[in-house]
Structures are given as structure tokens and as C-alpha cells.
């Protein structure tokens, strides 16, 4: 159904909802989802705005392929100025919510202002209204979704909401949809909470807002592309069987599994928290941790994990509400909650992961913040009294208690809610925060995978693996194998991944398709669905245009080349073990090469020629 050609503007201050036509000129230049919503955002919002001020806006947005039979065509994104980072944020989520929004007839929703009291947005096809959410405030994501479905007597409503974290000002709050899919990073849920917006509930029976340009060609193109996914070893076998957790042992072997706040690059208990371990029968109950795999809307890969926590595990004793099947563990969460803290207890990690879903906070930033706190404790800078417990590296008990405190917004949980950058700064050791632009690293140590260091440093939303997943090339050999231990050629590699990913993120499909699909696989699907002649050339330029647009916003917000850097640990403390032993990350060598490749000045500013070439 490509674009529905209309979006909803919700003025939270005045309590109004109104339909506006989509700017189709911009749709031709920015496609949809990440690109198009960011275009609206940068046109409407002052880059200097305080992320938590009413003047910040928050956009929930679909792509032209969202809600179609394209494989993985169920994605939606949240675009705003991130609470955690102060940079442009775009967090992408699967599940069913995005497709439902499209079926209701909306390409996106722009939220502006701040509601005087807690509200939720209810959408049933063309009808949209803000409803009182005072009875939902203080409730978890799980309770909110259940209550809304009961209130409206419709189990098929799809809900995106914040938990208590988003209400309590946890700086890395998520927006969670369909119980366990999340627009996870950069504190987009914190922004939602600051607007007194608890949830968005959507029911779409229209499915008629716009139409695919050439249905016959479109169905043929989607069929061919699905076959490419099914025939690929990663998307056809690895991901359905082990999920993203297929990576735990692989990355550990590479010597690129950040461990104990990046002190080490290999974790002695990696196997215990791996995808393989999730398939093994537990001695306690004879059951496997993993119950099944699961797909998001339209996805023919089905990498999602659904697991069940051991009922006898200390974290859930006498808590039957946690004994059912629930989402997780995915690799990033398993790493951040596990290896990053030296915790090798799979059941504890899944319990904490469920808390992250239940109250809506990002397990990557949370886990990495606990890691920073554990290092501060190890160094004697934080005491048992301050934290409220002993918190050595490796303590599953501390991890579990700290997660509960963060979810509830009590005790030391309030300080963890700051994220590692603000926490470490507060205690006088800012260099111990492992991240870029106040956002924590994901699960790849850039001493062992050099390109990821450049990707982290230059990511427009702060440290992130989903802007330039050079792991594909440096580890898996997709599309070509590059040496993970060298810096040569990584500037061009990172740029190519950044630009291509911008296109996929703007189309309405999942980044994981790129293990099997190149732009050449996406192009015929887009071209059959969307008017405008979507050639490879047009797409390549589109990706680069989006990247530079985001960069211009960040530069105007006050970011400079100094912010495109890694913490000193990764530049001065060599990896102690594994294939990367003795190496640090070569960011200072790669950065200038990257600026040149991008057509930017040595200060990281796009030149006039570059902007003219991209039509910016």
C-alpha cells in the first residue's frame, strides 16, 4: 500500500488531533520512516531544543513498505531529539504496531507540545482522540496494554507505550509495543514521558489508505526477495535457529566481546549465556530455556526469541507472573546484562530482560551502566552504602536487584537511570563511561573489530551497531570479507554501510534483511510499490542525503568533531587476550579518512559542494 499520503498531527498541549496531507515532494527525496520523519523533524524543531521541553517533538513513523507482504515489512520508527544523547534519535521497532498504524491509514504521527495531564492516543482508522490516562500512569507496559484492550473491548488493538521508567525520567526509557518489541535506544521513551503521553493504541481496519503502484510486479518482487532470505545461511538458518544470539560464541572467539566494562575482550562464561545454551535442557526442570522462535509482522526470518525462566531460579521464586513465556534473550541484551557485567547466569539475564520490557528501559544502556557502576564499586569510588548492596563484577544478585530498583525508580536505581555518562561524570570518572555522545556501546569491542569503532564514533544517534553494522563484513564476510584487525579501508566501508542502512531504515523493512539483501534486492520491491522511479542511483543518493541531514542537525545542536571519538580505554588500553591482543582502536587514523570520504571538512562539516550534490 506504499504511502497512505496522510499523517496525524497531535497537539498535546491543546488536546487536538488533525489529519494533514503528506508532503509527496519530500517523500520522493526522503522515502519514508527514518528519512522522511527526520526531514519533518529538522524542518520543525530547533536543534538547540531541550529534549525534555514541550518544544521537542516526537514522531512515530512507518515506511512505504510497512504493512505490505514484503518480508519484515512491519517496521516503524520513533524520531525525536534523544533524551540520553541530545542528538537526533531514530529508534526502530518490529512487532505488529507499525503495520496496524498503516492499516488505520496513517504514514506517521507527529506529537508536539505537552499534555497538562496523562493521556493516551486512541486511533481507530480515521478516528483519533486523546483519552485520559490517569488510571494508566504508574502502570507497567504489560498492564497498560492489557487495560487498554479490555477498556476498548478489542483484543486486536496494537499498543505502544511507556512503562514506569518513561514516567520516572530514566534517561534511556524505551517505547515498547506488542509486549516485547521496543523502539529502544537514545531515550525516546523519556521524551514520550515528558509529554505526559502514556500510550498509543491503534486499530486499523481500513487497509485502504493508498495502494501499491504495480501489484503484480510487487508480488513477484517480494516472492523473489523472500527466496533470497530463505536461501541465505544467516537469514535462512542461523537467525531462525539461534536468533541474534548466534553471535555470542562467535564474537567471543574473535576477542571482541566487551567484558567487565571493556576491561576484557573475552568472557569466560560466554558459552553459558549463548544461543546454544538456550537450546540445552536445564538440570532443574528438564526444559530448555528457549520455548520457540517468533516473527514480527510480515517477517520470513523469525529471529525473535521466546523463553521461559526457570521457576526455581532465585530471581522469580514466588513470582508466578514471571513464569510464563516472554520475549528474549536477544544478543545485545544478553551481552549488556551478561558479559558487560561479568554475569554468566542465563536465567538472571532473562529475568532482567523481562523487567526491561515490562517497564520500558533499554537493556543495552542499562547493562552498560551497571557495568560502569560495578567498576566504580571495584575502584572504591562507589561504596556498598551508596549502592545499597555489594556490587562486584559477576554478581547476578546485584544485577537483579539493581534492575528492580531502576524499574521502580527507587534507591540507587535513580542514579542508574541517569545512564553511564552522567553517572560516571557525577562521581568524577567520566572516562569510565563506555560510549559515544552519552550513548553506551553495544556488544562489539572495537579493538577486535576496528570498523565498528569508526561506526560508533560517527553514528548520528550516539554509539550504535544499527547505523553501520560492519560486523557483517569484518566477521561474516557480507558482502565481502574485510580484516577486522586493520583500519585500512574502513572509512569507505563504514560510509557505505551507513548510507545503505539509511535506505533500509526509510523503507519499512528490518536491518536484518541486509545479511542477505543488498540495495539491488530492495530496489525492485520499492520500485513496484512506490511511484517515482526508484532506481539504484536514486536510492544511493537518498541514503547519503539522509545521513548528511542528520549530521547537519547534530552540528547545529552543538556537536563537533570532538564528539566523534571513543573513550580513552579503547584508544590506550590494548586488548589483553584473543586475536586482537595488543591492539587498540585506530579511530584517530580512521576519522580524517572518513571525513574525506564523506566530503566533509577536517572539522566534520559537510562542504558546500557535498550539500549541493545531495540537494541539501
Amino acid at each position: 500500500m506504499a504511502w497512505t499520503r496522510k499523517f496525524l498531527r497531535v497537539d498535546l498541549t491543546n488536546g487536538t488531533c488533525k489529519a494533514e496531507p503528506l508532503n509527496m515532494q519530500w517523500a520522493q527525496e526522503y522515502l519514508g520512516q527514518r528519512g522522511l520523519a527526520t526531514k519533518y523533524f529538522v524542518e520543525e524543531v530547533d536543534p538547540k531544543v531541550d529534549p525534555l521541553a514541550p518544544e521537542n517533538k516526537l514522531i512515530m513513523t512507518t515506511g512505504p513498505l510497512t504493512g505490505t507482504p514484503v518480508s519484515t515489512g512491519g517496521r516503524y520508527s520513533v524520531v525525536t531529539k534523544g533524551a540520553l544523547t541530545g542528538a537526533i534519535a531514530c529508534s526502530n521497532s518490529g512487532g505488529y504496531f507499525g503495520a496496524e498504524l498503516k492499516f488505520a491509514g496513517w504514514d506517521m504521527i507527529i506529537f508536539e507540545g505537552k499534555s497538562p495531564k496523562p493521556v493516551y492516543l486512541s486511533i481507530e482508522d480515521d478516528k483519533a482522540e486523546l483519552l485520559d490516562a490517569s488510571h494508566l500512569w504508574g502502570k507497567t507496559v504489560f498492564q497498560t496494554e492489557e487495560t487498554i484492550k479490555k477498556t476498548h473491548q478489542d483484543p486486536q488493538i496494537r499498543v505502544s507505550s511507556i512503562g514506569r521508567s518513561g514516567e520516572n525520567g530514566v534517561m534511556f526509557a524505551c517505547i515498547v509495543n506488542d509486549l516485547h518489541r521496543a523502539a529502544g535506544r537514545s531515550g525516546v521513551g523519556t521524551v514520550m514521558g515528558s509529554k505526559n503521553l502514556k500510550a498509543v493504541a491503534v486499530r486499523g481496519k481500513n487497509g485502504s489508505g493508498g495502494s501499491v503502484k504495480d501489484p503484480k510486479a510487487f508480488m513477484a518482487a517480494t516472492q523473489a526477495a523472500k527466496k533470497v532470505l530463505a536461501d541465505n545461511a544467516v537469514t535462512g538458518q542461523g537467525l531462525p535457529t539461534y536468533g541474534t544470539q548466534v553471535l555470542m560464541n562467535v564474537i567471543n572467539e574473535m576477542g571482541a566481546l566487551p567484558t567487565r566494562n571493556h576491561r576484557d575482550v573475552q568472557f569466560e562464561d560466554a558459552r553459558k549465556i549463548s544461543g546454544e545454551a538456550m537450546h540445552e535442557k536445564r538440570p532443574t526442570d528438564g526444559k530448555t530455556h528457549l520455548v520457540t522462535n517468533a516473527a514480527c509482522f510480515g517477517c520470513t526470518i523469525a529471529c525473535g526469541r521466546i523463553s521461559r525462566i526457570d521457576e526455581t531460579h532465585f530471581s522469580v521464586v514466588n513470582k508466578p507472573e514471571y513464569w510464563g513465556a516472554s520475549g528474549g534473550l536477544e544478543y545485545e541484551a544478553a551481552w549488556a546484562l551478561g558479559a558487560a557485567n561479568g554475569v554468566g547466569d542465563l536465567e538472571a539475564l532473562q529475568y532482567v530482560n523481562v523487567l526491561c520490557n515490562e517497564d520500558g528501559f533499554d537493556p543495552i544502556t542499562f547493562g552498560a551502566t551497571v557495568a560502569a557502576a560495578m567498576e566504580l564499586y571495584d575502584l572504591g569510588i562507589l561504596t556498598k552504602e551508596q549502592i545499597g548492596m555489594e556490587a562486584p563484577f559477576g554478581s547476578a544478585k546485584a544485577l537483579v536487584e539493581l534492575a528492580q530498583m531502576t524499574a521502580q525508580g527507587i534507591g540507587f536505581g535513580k542514579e542508574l537511570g541517569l545512564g553511564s555518562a552522567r553517572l560516571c561524570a557525577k562521581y568524577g570518572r567520566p572516562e569510565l563511561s563506555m560510549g559515544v555522545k552519552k550513548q553506551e556501546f553495544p556488544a562489539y569491542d572495537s579493538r577486535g573489530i576496528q570498523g565498528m569503532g569508526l561506526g560508533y564514533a560517527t553514528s548520528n544517534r550516539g554509539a550504535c551497531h544499527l547505523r553501520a553494522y560492519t560486523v557483517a563484513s569484518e566477521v561474516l564476510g557480507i558482502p565481502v570479507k574485510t580484516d577486522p584487525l586493520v583500519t585500512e579501508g574502513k572509512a569507505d566501508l563504514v560510509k557505505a554501510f551507513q548510507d545503505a542502512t539509511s535506505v533500509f531504515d526509510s523503507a519499512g523493512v528490518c536491518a536484518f534483511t541486509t545479511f542477505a539483501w543488498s540495495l539491488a534486492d530492495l530496489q525492485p520491491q520499492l520500485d513496484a510499490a512506490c511511484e517515482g522511479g526508484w532506481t539504484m542511483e536514486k536510492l544511493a543518493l537518498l541514503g547519503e542525503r539522509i545521513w548528511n541531514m542528520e549530521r547537519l542537525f547534530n552540528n547545529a545542536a552543538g556537536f563537533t568533531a570532538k564528539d566523534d571519538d571513543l573513550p580513552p580505554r579503547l584508544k590506550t588500553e590494548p586488548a589483553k587476550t584473543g586475536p586482537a591482543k595488543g591492539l587498540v582502536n585506530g579511530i584517530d587514523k580512521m576519522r580524517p579518512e572518513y571525513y574525506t570520504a564523506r566530503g566533509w571538512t577536517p572539522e566534520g562539516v559537510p562542504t558546500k559542494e557535498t550539500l549541493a550534490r545531495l540537494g541539501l
Partner: protein
Amino acid sequence: MQKSLHMDANKCTGCLQCEMACSYENYGVFNISKSRIKVFNFEHEGRKVPYTCTQCAEAWCMNACPVDAIRIDAGTGAKVVHEDVCVGCKVCTIACPFGTVNYVADSGKVQKCDLCGGDPACASACPTGAITYVDADWTGLDKMRQWAGKTDTQPRAAA
């Protein structure tokens, strides 16, 4: 040969490609609310179950219809709703023990699976083989084989 839709819920991932294929085949739109096959998600059990009409041999919906709007397709054996005859009385929805005949407010008629004339779009669209279109006489074969596989065939110790 008569064929049946066969559902193996263990293989279902909940992607809803079947629901999109059904709505596209029957209404020319991607709109899962119009789908005649539904996937139900039992969250806390980690189970997703596709479900639609089984085309009962003794079809109570057909027997209950007061205006003879549900008739057997000679080619497929499907019980097919003839919309031009249906008066939307909903008696068939009460008669069906499985709830797989549904009223559609937009049209004022009921809808149910008609096997797409012998080439069910849901089965073609299913990426995991959870929905297949098989020889009706062999319905259940997979399950039978599964249980047969558990039979103890170790050689007996000599008496």
C-alpha cells in the same frame, strides 16, 4: 483427489503472511482484518496458532443457512458463501462449532474460507510450512509419523 488445509501450529512464527495473502486474494488489498484465516497468539505459552474453516463434511453452517447461500464447490469440496444470496442473518455463525464463519459489518454478509478455488493463497504464502494444502485422506499423517518415531524398536534381549 480432495485436498485439505493442514495446520501445524508448531511451525507457525506469527508473521501473518497468510492473513495478508488471504485479504489480497479475496479483496485485492493488504488488510489482515479482512482475512478469513487468523493466527492467534497465546503470549504466555509462546504459542501461535493459525486457524480457519476445516470444510466439515457435514457442514452445520450450510445446513443452518435458511436461504441456501452456502453451497459445496464441486471441484474442491469447499463450502462457499454466495454473497448475492446471503442475507446476513448470522445463523451460520452460531451453527459453526469452531467460529470460522464470520460476519462482516461492511458488506452485511458472512465470510469464510473457500480454499481459493483449489490453490489456497495462505498455504502458498506461509514461509515455514505451518500451513500446507494436502491430500485430504492423509490429514494427520505428519502427527502419526511423529508418534511412530517414538515407538521403541530396540532389539529385545535374548530370552
